[in-house]
């Protein structure tokens, strides 16, 4: 079934708050094998000008990919979840995510098209603090193969 182009521009209600914890950042940094002290040591992070430990550049996916799932739950989005693979990923960091951030994710459909039977859906997730400070824009292109 082809994706309806009228979906482009559709935005979903903001997510619940995701509170970024130091332990979660350290766990993620260890999982990707990155030894940087900026991910683990608040003193080292402060010495580098950050208020607290910062997160590795791809940590945003922990928050953004779950937020993007709101699109696949939309009954108007005729995509078979079981066929979905991750096609592309892009991050634009306005500033590093850091421990203590209380993030809200807002998801918007940036593109929807069907090419050779494959459904391509681009979900943009804007991560901002509760106070409205823009932190990261994470854009995921999901592919449902024919």
């Amino acid at each position, binding site marked *: 079934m082809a994706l309806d182009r009228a979906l482009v521009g559709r935005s979903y209600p903001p997510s619940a708050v995701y509170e970024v914890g130091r332990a979660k950042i350290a766990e993620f940094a*260890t*999982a990707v094998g990155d030894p940087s002290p900026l991910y683990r040591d608040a003193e080292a992070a402060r010495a580098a000008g*950050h208020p607290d430990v910062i997160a590795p550049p791809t940590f945003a996916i922990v928050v953004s990919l779950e937020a993007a799932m709101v699109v696949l739950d939309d009954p108007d989005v005729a995509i078979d979840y079981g066929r979905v693979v*991750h096609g592309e990923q892009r991050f634009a*960091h306005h500033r590093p995510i850091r421990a203590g951030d209380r993030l809200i994710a807002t998801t918007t459909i940036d593109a929807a098209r069907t090419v050779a039977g494959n459904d391509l859906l681009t979900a943009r997730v804007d991560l901002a603090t509760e106070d409205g400070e823009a932190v990261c824009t994470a854009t995921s292109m999901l592919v449902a193969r024919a």
Partner: protein
Amino acid sequence: MSAVVRLADVEVGTELPEQRYRITRADLVRYAGASGDFNPIHWNERVATEVGLPGVIAHGMFTMALAGRAVTGWTGDPAALVEFQVRFGRPVVVPDDDAGAELTVRGTVAALLDEGRVRVDLAVGSAGEKVLSLARAVVRLA
């Protein structure tokens, strides 16, 4: 921590040090837990082959994270990475042995942008095949 690489040190064509990362099944299990992506194609051979894959494959986002390490390790400052994008071209198959798979990441400065920003194009391969395409990072250097 200040950036190891300064804007004055780079020009179009500057190459990043090549990085090689080993990926084992244990790494995939650890990444699944840390990221929350428990798709069984990243840890279960039976499920992976049932959906037509050659075997268990690495999370695309894990591969992207390793490519990112090559960039942040070069700049010395993870906060310098302001934009990062990849297309997941080919899966990285991770065999069930101690050697696992090897990922090779090379990077080249492709363009000098405004405001101290520098575009780095990445070549990311495994077992002789390119696994990421359109892999680019933009870093802001002092």
